[in-house]
């Protein structure tokens, strides 16, 4: 099948002009849109079958909404695909199917936990809401694909992004906290409607970092003084970004949203390292994170509880549990253990023992119990693939802004997956974030769909045969359109990302 023909674009300079059969453009670069369509069919079919599986396991019959769900998911995916075909024809073919698969599986699991919900207090059905949010998420995806003509336009909004991100992050502090939010002040509420601005700030802050570092990267990399064997940049180069970053971390610590602080910290270090190509940033980053972690861990009682729960997850089951202990990690570990290698089967586990948080923070525990080690490994593979496609896009991108943005978005995604999954499985202390696409939560779904859309736009530009002029003049550098030191290796040439 020609759509899987990887050779057509593998050799730089030759594939560009060669004509092959199948959906290729005039220039001969395969668009891989049919690949995407085929993968999308799988990505819709698997959750629909999973939905049927849950219905059969719990009620002994196919769920009544199965047809509507299948058609709805299929229609949403199809519209997204058509939008990509029309407005980002060269975009990466795997990102959309992978995100659709995760979103669909998440919906099925939330619906399944709704069904078990009568066993719990504090439980409210969430599947229909999540379905609506998924629709909005895909609408957001289409909107970005449609309206963002070129990702380089975002560069214009570098400083506006900074302001917006800070406002978004600070906003929840001005809204009253509620007991059911479990200590974290990360929501903005309008009546029954609420958004979690941190998820959007993740993307907007990445835009700011990318825009700022793109401009300053040479200064940061070259105009530095040597201090104790490390190269330190001048204050005027690094100052603004340090200030913004510190502000966001402080806001998050103030709102006790530790997962996000860690995420923003990692994001900052990774982007600085990629922009400057200086290993010293990693050293700085590690030193600062250890320092910061030590300070927070000793001062913040909320964190101490989390660390204790990580060290001894079964402490909450003792006859006299320590104050503020939570049994959720212990419950999750027991559900993972009960799931074993192949799991209990969808709908046949007892995930509700993890309590209502199963739908948000702990949905991975439910997957682990019902799909087993096999299922979790597959999910991690899917997440790993999304990250890998994003980093691949960064390699392929021809402009430093695009590179930085793609690296930032992908590594933020990877860090979030690691922080949540690591916390839930007891690898690291739990910090409380949502599993991208899988977990219940409107802001999370919409923001992550936007993230995927931006990545796809960057990959579209990267793989588009004839480079269009950039919207903003860029400083000359090796990464500009002409062949530079980064070009030439086959893996980053256009069209190679099969």
């Amino acid at each position, binding site marked *: 099948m020609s759509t899987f023909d990887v050779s057509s674009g593998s050799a730089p300079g030759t594939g560009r002009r060669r004509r092959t059969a199948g959906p290729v453009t005039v220039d001969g670069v395969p668009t891989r849109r049919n690949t995407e369509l085929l993968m999308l069919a799988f990505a819709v079919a698997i959750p629909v079958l999973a939905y049927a599986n849950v219905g059969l396991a719990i009620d002994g019959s196919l769920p009544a909404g199965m047809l509507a769900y299948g058609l709805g998911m299929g229609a949403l995916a199809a519209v997204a695909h058509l939008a990509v075909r029309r407005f980002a024809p060269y975009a990466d073919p795997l990102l959309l199917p992978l995100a659709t698969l995760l979103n669909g599986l998440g919906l099925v699991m939330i619906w399944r936990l709704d069904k078990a919900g009568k066993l719990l207090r504090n439980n409210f059905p969430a599947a229909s809401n999540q379905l609506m949010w998924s629709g909005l998420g895909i609408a957001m995806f289409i909107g970005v694909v449609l309206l963002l003509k070129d990702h380089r336009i975002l560069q214009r909004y570098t400083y506006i992004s900074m302001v917006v991100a800070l406002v978004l992050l600070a906003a929840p502090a001005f809204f009253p906290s509620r007991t059911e939010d479990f200590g974290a002040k990360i929501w903005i509420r309008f009546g029954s409607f609420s958004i979690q601005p941190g998820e959007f700030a993740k993307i907007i802050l990445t835009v700011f970092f990318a825009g700022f570092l793109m401009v300053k990267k040479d200064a940061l990399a070259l105009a530095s003084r040597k201090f104790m064997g490390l190269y330190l940049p001048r204050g005027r180069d690094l100052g603004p970004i340090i200030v913004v970053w510190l502000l966001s971390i402080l806001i998050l610590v103030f709102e006790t949203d530790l997962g996000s602080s860690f995420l923003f910290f990692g994001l900052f270090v990774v982007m600085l390292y990629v922009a400057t190509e200086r290993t010293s940033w990693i050293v700085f980053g590690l030193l600062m994170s250890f320092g910061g972690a030590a300070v927070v861990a000793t001062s913040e009682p909320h964190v101490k509880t989390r660390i204790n729960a990580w060290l001894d997850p079964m402490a909450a089951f003792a006859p006299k549990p320590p104050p503020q202990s939570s049994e959720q990690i*212990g419950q999750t570990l027991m559900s*993972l*253990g009960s799931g074993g290698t192949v799991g209990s089967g969808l709908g046949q586990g007892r995930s509700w023992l993890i309590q209502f948080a199963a739908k948000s923070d702990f949905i991975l525990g439910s997957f*682990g119990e019902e799909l087993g*080690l096999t299922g979790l490994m597959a999910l991690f593979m899917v997440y790993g693939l999304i990250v*890998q496609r994003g980093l691949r896009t960064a390699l392929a991108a021809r402009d430093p802004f695009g590179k*930085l943005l793609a690296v930032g978005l992908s590594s933020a995604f990877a860090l979030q997956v690691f922080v949540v999954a*690591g916390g839930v499985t007891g690898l690291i202390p739990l910090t409380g974030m949502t599993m991208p696409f899988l977990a219940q939560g409107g802001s999370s779904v919409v923001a992550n769909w936007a993230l995927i859309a931006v990545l796809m736009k960057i990959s579209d530009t990267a793989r588009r045969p004839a480079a269009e002029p950039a919207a903003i003049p860029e400083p000359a550098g090796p990464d500009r359109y002409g062949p530079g030191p980064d070009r030439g290796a086959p893996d980053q040439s256009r069209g190679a990302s099969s």
Partner: protein
Amino acid sequence: MNKPIRRVSIFCLVLVLALMLRVNWVQGVQASAWANNSHNERVKYDRYAYPRGNIIVGGQAVTKSDLVNGLRYKYKRSWVDGPMYAPVTGYSSQAFDASQLEKLEDGVLSGTDSRLFFRNTLDMLTGKPKQGGDVVTTIDPKVQRAAFEGLGDKKGAAVAIDPRTGAILALVSTPSYDPTTFSGGSDSDSKAKAALDADPNKPLLNRALRETYPPGSTFKLVTAATAFESGKYQNPTDTTDTPNPYVLPGTSTELKNASSTEPCENATVQDAMDLSCNTVFGKMGAELGGDKLRTQAEKFGFNNDQVDVPIRAAASYFPKGSSPDGTAMDAIGQHDTRATPLQMAMVAAAIANNGSLMQPYLVAQEGSAGNVISTHTEHQMSQAVSPATAQKLQQLMESVVQNGTGRNARIPGATVGGKTGTAQHGQDNSGLPFAWFVSYAKGADGKQVAVAVVVEDGAAERNEISGGSLAAPIAKAMMQAGLGK
């Protein structure tokens, strides 16, 4: 910029790999430890997620698994003739764990026993619904019913054993309870359990296995066995040198008989047994000494805290180091001597089986039809007395039923031997005495059954309580049922 991007990809790969390693550790290496953690409620829910195996009595299941399809539990346990079989089956409750066979055989009943693995796998492959294995008991429903109806609303216990094999034919304790009333997890189940726990009559107590009583005069069989085994007496017709009343050694306390008119002075062993003379056996015990008595008692199973049938019986007790007057009282089953009903049934069974005490057992087979995973093999627990001594003891017991206090247990066409007991207890013997009857019966067709019955305060009037009048009729009914008469 591509070099750092590649390094970042490697870093992200490491993050994903770390997650994969972690879940492999939790779900692969540690999986069963988490799955079977004592706080993991799934274990409890799994037990009732599919039909539990049955406990079989006389070819019929006395247990059922009812599909209730509850939110947490799919099945609920119920019992046929629950109160009658409760001392055998125990209970298996969603909220209150399990006891007795339901607990001890849980691996088989719930199907998790590793020996059922092959069948379970086969069932999974052939699509048969999962089900636990069965436990086949040795209980004879006719004997069980005779004992249960005989005890009626009296407080007490009864045990029947096949002396030749050790198979337990009946195991009854009254007042009993219906395990079905609290097999679920609802409020009414909790209330039923709380009421049973608070009941002063202790219906949850398995009196047949788990309660020790002073055995009273039934212990005179052990004293007589010691006397024959040690050579102090050769024949049941040997006369004893016994005053009436007998003054306990080292004291001025007189040991009396039930009635002062009974001819116990210098009676023969057989007459003393017929009349249940305290003076004769008290003096006999004091002269034999505590050590000899204890050694003989231990051969019958006393002082053994590991009599598992497989439900563990409480250890029956014969004391060590009593003073001579204490030993005289121990020898007639008072003072510190204590025995479970099972223990006294074992004494009767060993005597009936020519001195050979067979290991008592309750479970004949485990597994389902066509897939038996274990069958009990009989084995001797000890040679309690020599066959010659056993013959002499049989002669004594048969005489008790023919001529003595055990006349109420006579069965036409069968050889019946027995011994009555009326055991004092409480502070200064203030409690209403316990009525005992320990016996065996042999039919013409070779069938045998050994029985022990104890009735606690069966009548309000103290002088109406005696083993012969209260316990013997129940034992007789059980023996008749066991012999099929």
